[in-house]
């Protein structure tokens, strides 16, 4: 609670106490306060007392209302509240003058008092959830210590250039992305990834900005300027998350634009028509004033985005960044999950597990490594790692998409690739039967041997796919691997469908086909590791990228980023999305039903202003509490 809120709370408490004392005295004394004062002008005593409480609690509302009217904002909530309460005062004065026993001073006062209680509560609740996001914002580094000409200079992170050396002391945030050049330490990346185990880093390791240095001093060579660094990207993303509005939010704002004028019109009609017909002006004006009490749509307008906000907050606490409430809304309906195999269902850390024939190991590896020299594909990297030496220079490399590479040097041709490549060049090869990716190597049309490269499945793949299947989702695996590997990995992970032997461009086509053949209500998610699947991530209804930290392309192209390199974020986020949407609809329906019920009851004269204000404020409080439930501590623990 900030100072402003504390002051406000004190004001409400004092006014409430004063009001209760007045109310009890008024009810206990025979004939009320007016009777105690006696005489024709006895009503002036309760009027004066209640009016002072009224002014103490509502002077700001009155002031804002007046200012609003002067600026032409007639349907401002402050104005409507003032009309309702001042109207009630007027009615009370009228009864006081005519009967000597005024009725309704207490009511007018109470309405404004409870209105302020509701406002206070809303302010407090939104402040709290705002803070939960600010905690995430806490990753913003304030300064960087740059080593320039043998001296340490402390500057703004944005003033540090790429290639400069910075020092990070224990307890400080890493301000910019870079590589450790001196020292070793452990880093706390919880704010970024939700991962609670610290990460050990040493010389040569890459560090991302926003993580906190825990144990000892590090010197880092800066690789990215501040606006390009992970921390800026994430902050940008979080700040924009709230600007992507969901359908539910848009519906509510549109509804609010119509709701207030409609209720006000209804109130005027209710006061004028039956009043003129029956002649009982008092009663009908009173009923119309009750209408105005419930005319503010603020509850709805606030509770829906608040729920989404809480949902996004809960997801980010679990290491899942959702880029906007529209994605959270859509993700709840997600029922087709398309997974990329490599790096997503499997770890993507390929290793050469077998070379056939073993006696030619060195030669085969050397040729394959030379041919795959320029490729950043994980398989190529695994071959380079297995070879260990420096690849031979001088080859002219030609990439044949989906088949392999042909490397030419001084009239000799080396072919490195899959069986398609071998068949096309009519090479008589010995098929390798092991499960994994097979790379065949041939030189000048003669088959030399093969490499078997295998990939490990992620330990959590099976559970994640199983829980998605249990939620009634279709799970599809796409892979460039052949049928045999695809089948074994698919069976291992438990996906319901798989498509094998796809070229990179086929994946886009496959997702396009799935998008066009799905029912309008289906939502297709593509889960990839962000490496070369950006087009598919963008094209699908919801793109989910793995291992967001350090991968800019993934952060930019996807709608949901799994900050931790762990698929378990998907079912967690799905449960959070489901919970959020349930709360959103509960809030919408609950508020609408209660408001309509109050309107009907006050129209027929069954509900007074008391009930109207209780209903209005009560609904606000319940809806806000409900929204906060999405982000409650207990629920997060259960989700993780």
């Amino acid at each position, binding site marked *: 609670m900030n100072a402003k809120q504390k002051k406000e709370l004190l004001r409400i408490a004092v006014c409430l106490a004063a009001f209760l004392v007045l109310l009890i005295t008024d009810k206990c004394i025979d004939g009320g306060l007016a009777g105690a004062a006696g005489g024709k002008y006895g009503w002036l005593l309760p009027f004066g007392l209640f009016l002072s409480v009224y002014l103490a609690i509502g002077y700001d509302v009155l002031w804002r209302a007046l*200012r609003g009217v002067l600026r032409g904002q007639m349907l401002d909530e402050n104005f409507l509240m003032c009309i309702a309460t001042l109207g009630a005062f007027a009615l009370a004065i009228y009864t006081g003058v005519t009967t000597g026993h005024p009725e309704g001073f207490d009511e007018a006062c109470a309405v404004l008092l409870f209105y302020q209680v509701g406002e206070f509560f809303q302010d407090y609740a939104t402040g709290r959830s705002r803070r939960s996001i600010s905690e995430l914002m806490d990753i913003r580094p304030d300064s960087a210590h740059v080593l320039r000409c043998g001296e340490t200079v402390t500057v703004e992170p944005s003033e540090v250039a790429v290639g400069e050396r910075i020092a990070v002391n224990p307890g400080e945030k890493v301000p910019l992305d870079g590589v450790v050049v001196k020292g070793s330490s452990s880093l706390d990346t919880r704010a970024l990834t939700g991962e609670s185990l610290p990460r050990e880093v040493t010389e040569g390791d890459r560090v991302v900005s926003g993580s906190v240095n825990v144990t000892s001093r590090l010197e880092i060579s800066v690789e990215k300027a501040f606006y390009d660094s992970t921390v800026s990207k994430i902050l940008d993303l979080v700040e924009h998350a709230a600007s992507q509005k969901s359908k539910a939010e848009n519906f509510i*704002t549109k509804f609010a634009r119509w709701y207030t004028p409609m209720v006000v019109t209804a109130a005027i009609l209710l006061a004028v028509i039956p009043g003129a017909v029956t002649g009982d002006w008092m009663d009908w004006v009173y009923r119309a004033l009750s209408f105005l009490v419930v005319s503010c749509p603020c509850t709805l307008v*606030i509770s829906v985005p608040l729920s989404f906000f809480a949902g996004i907050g809960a997801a980010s606490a679990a290491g899942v960044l959702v880029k906007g409430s529209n994605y959270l809304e859509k993700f709840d309906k997600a029922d087709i999950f398309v997974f990329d195999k490599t790096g997503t269902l499997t770890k993507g850390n390929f290793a050469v597990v077998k070379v056939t024939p073993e006696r030619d190991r060195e030669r085969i590896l050397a040729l394959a490594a030379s041919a795959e020299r320029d490729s950043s594909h994980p398989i190529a990297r695994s071959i380079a790692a297995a070879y260990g030496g420096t690849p031979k220079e001088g080859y002219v490399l030609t990439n044949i998409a989906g088949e392999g590479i042909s490397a030419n040097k001084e009239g000799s041709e080396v072919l490195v690739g899959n069986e398609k490549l071998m068949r096309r060049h009519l090479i008589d090869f010995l098929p390798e039967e092991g499960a994994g990716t097979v790379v065949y190597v041939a030189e000048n049309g003669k088959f030399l041997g093969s490499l078997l490269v295998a990939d490990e499945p992620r330990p959590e793949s099976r559970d994640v796919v199983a829980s998605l299947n249990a939620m009634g989702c279709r799970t599809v695996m796409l892979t460039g691997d052949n049928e045999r590997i695809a089948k074994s990995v698919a069976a291992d992970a438990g996906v319901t469908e798989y498509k094998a032997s796809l070229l990179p461009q086929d994946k886009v086509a496959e997702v396009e086909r799935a998008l066009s053949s799905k029912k309008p209500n289906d939502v297709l998610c593509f889960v990839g590791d962000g490496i070369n699947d950006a087009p598919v991530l963008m094209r699908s209804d919801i793109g989910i990228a793995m291992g967001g930290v350090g991968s800019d392309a993934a952060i930019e192209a996807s709608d949901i980023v799994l900050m931790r390199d762990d698929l378990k974020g998907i079912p967690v986020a799905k449960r959070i999305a489901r919970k959020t949407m349930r709360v959103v609809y509960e809030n919408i329906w609950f508020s609408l039903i209660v408001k309509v019920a109050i309107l009907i009851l006050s129209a027929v004269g069954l509900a007074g202003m008391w009930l109207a204000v209780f209903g209005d404020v009560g609904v606000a409080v319940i809806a806000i509490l409900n929204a906060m439930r999405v982000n409650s501590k207990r629920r997060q623990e259960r989700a993780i």
Partner: protein
Amino acid sequence: MKKTFPLEDLDCANCAAKMEHAISKIDGVNEVSVSFLMQRMTIDADDDRFDDILKEAVKKCRRIEPDCKIKL
């Protein structure tokens, strides 16, 4: 050009919605989003008239919610 501005003392969710609606009506504004929860306004408008549009937006905000200030 797309820019984000912090808002100060934006106290009412409905006002935020009203502000958003009013600013979106300004000629030259492609997209605007006023987030009550983040206390931020993101505005996407024509480059060459951006400053005028912003001035107009500030004026409209002041009319709807005089307490709220756009920090330029």
